[in-house]
């Protein structure tokens, strides 16, 4: 009987103690009834930001062959002209037609074996999605122009960088107009 009573008392004590621990945050007994010790949930889970976790961009290994290709592509890319646009517009201006046709000549000539990446860009007036869509509209206008000049659609990919890839950072109209552009890049 005594053994049973002792066992039951021990079990009750364990249950009470473990129950208290689970239901309440740790209590600092030295500080009075209203002083609680708390580990804020968001802080505790902040190991999210542990300093050793950084996802980097994967880069592929390059061969000598690839380097030769790169040089050739870079040289051709440097000869291609940006196409500039008006504020909030994606129609190719008459003033840009010479630049465009010079690029078309290159794309159908020396660069005919390369894929073409058309990059749409915008000025700094807005970091919102609309700016990215506007950059894409500009890229798409150039893509359509290339297709009408017998460049196969399958050779062309597009991307919009919005305002994220400016060539000029001054706060002037002239500078902003340089950023409203489409760039041509070549891919193997």
């Amino acid at each position, binding site marked *: 009987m005594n053994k049973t009573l002792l066992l039951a008392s021990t079990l009750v004590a364990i249950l009470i103690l473990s129950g208290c621990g689970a239901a309440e945050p740790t209590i*600092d007994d030295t*500080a*009075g009834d*209203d*002083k*609680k*010790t*708390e*580990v*804020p949930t*968001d*802080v505790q*889970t*902040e*190991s*999210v*930001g542990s*300093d050793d*976790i*950084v*996802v*980097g*961009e994967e880069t592929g290994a390059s061969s000598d062959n690839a380097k030769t290709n790169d040089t050739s592509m870079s040289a051709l890319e440097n000869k291609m002209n940006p196409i500039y646009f008006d*504020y*909030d517009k994606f129609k190719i201006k008459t003033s840009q037609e010479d630049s465009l046709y010079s690029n078309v000549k290159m794309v159908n000539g020396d660069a005919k074996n390369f894929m073409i*990446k058309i990059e749409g860009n915008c000025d*700094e*007036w*807005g*970091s*919102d*999605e*609309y*700016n*990215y*869509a*506007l950059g*894409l*509209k500009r*890229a*798409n206008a150039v*893509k359509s122009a290339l297709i009408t000049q017998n460049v196969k659609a399958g050779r062309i*990919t*597009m*991307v*919009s*960088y*919005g*305002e*994220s*890839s*400016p*060539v000029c950072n001054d*706060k002037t*109209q002239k500078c*902003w107009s340089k950023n409203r552009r489409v760039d041509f890049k070549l*891919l193997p």
Partner: protein
Amino acid sequence: MKVIFISILFSLVALASDATIEVIKQSQRMPSLAVEDSTDSYDKSLNKKFFKAIVSDLKVLSIFNVSNTYVKNDFDDDVDVINMKKDIVIKYSLEDNDGSTNVNLKIIRGKKAIFQKRYKINRTSLYIFVAHSMAYDINKVFGSNDVAWMKRKVVISRLVGRGESEIVLTDYTLTYQHVVVRGGLNVFPKFLNNKQNEIVYTNLSGLRPTLFKLDTLSGKSQKLLTSDGLLICSDISDDGKEALLSMAPNGQSDIYKYNFDTKKLKRITKYKGIDVNAQFMDGNTIAFVSNRLGYPNVFQKNLDNNEVDQMVYYGKSNSACSAHNEYLVYKARESKNAFSANTFNLHLISTKSDFVRRLTASGVNDFPRFSKDGRAVLFIKNYKNQSAIGVIRLEYNKNYLFPLNIGKIQSMDW
């Protein structure tokens, strides 16, 4: 007479529940509050940083007249003589506890301690989250409207060079900063769930825009989708199961709905112009930005039919929005000259009233995002060469700015 009285009563109730016009009246005199540092021996530079952090948070609460004066005083002593006339005194102390840090808080009102609490952190770099938690608790003690948004993490894309950006985990004051994605152009990060331990973001460094999912605890990354031209996660449903995307597989930006479990995509809009920035609203409705009137403006659409309605009638170029239930905050260009000084301001409307409330007064205010409870709006402010995060306390009609030291904020979520 009874009818008139009931009508007035109903009007008052209706107006009181409309956040577009409800601004809590500031009392003639807010309670004065001072902060005392009771730390015995600890890193002195952190002491001062912590003092500034808690003072800043208390100001953002908008319910106290907070003193900037730094005062040292023992935790168990009476308030310092300089603070004798203050209505409320906050005491804190930092102490080392076997490698971790304890922060003790005491709230004193009228010479009486009315609240005490202890906080623990494993790394001192997280001290700002303790300051936010303390401010949250102090606000709660005085019975003000919930500020749980204060304790949430914020994720930003920070432009660090031409075509180069980083995804950074931070807090609403940009004090804590930890880079989780580095290299290339990574934009439009969004928290995938309420725990804030997973994000999705767009990588623009490859052949095509690619949407990645990243577990920020394990660092595990997963490619979700690729699309030519444009691919942005605009909003994620509260249960974390569905996303609204801006995609352009055929060079045409439209709204798509994506289910993270089934991996199924559903096209929501079919318009030959620009449709972007879709946001879940109450019920089965979304808000989104479109140029279908010839300029960017905000529209709404029921997901079950093809009807599209204009939502916003004020502003010349309304190119960004955020929705919370029936409320919408949007960015509008108000000046005639697209490049004038006073260019973009944020405005708040409700689908249940015609009121428009301007939330910002000057500069370029961009990328508004409601807090989960809809009580605050976070936004990006760019002024001259400075990029900052702004927080708008809708109930108090007050804005607070927190500048970024390096780089420019491209986008954010919280």
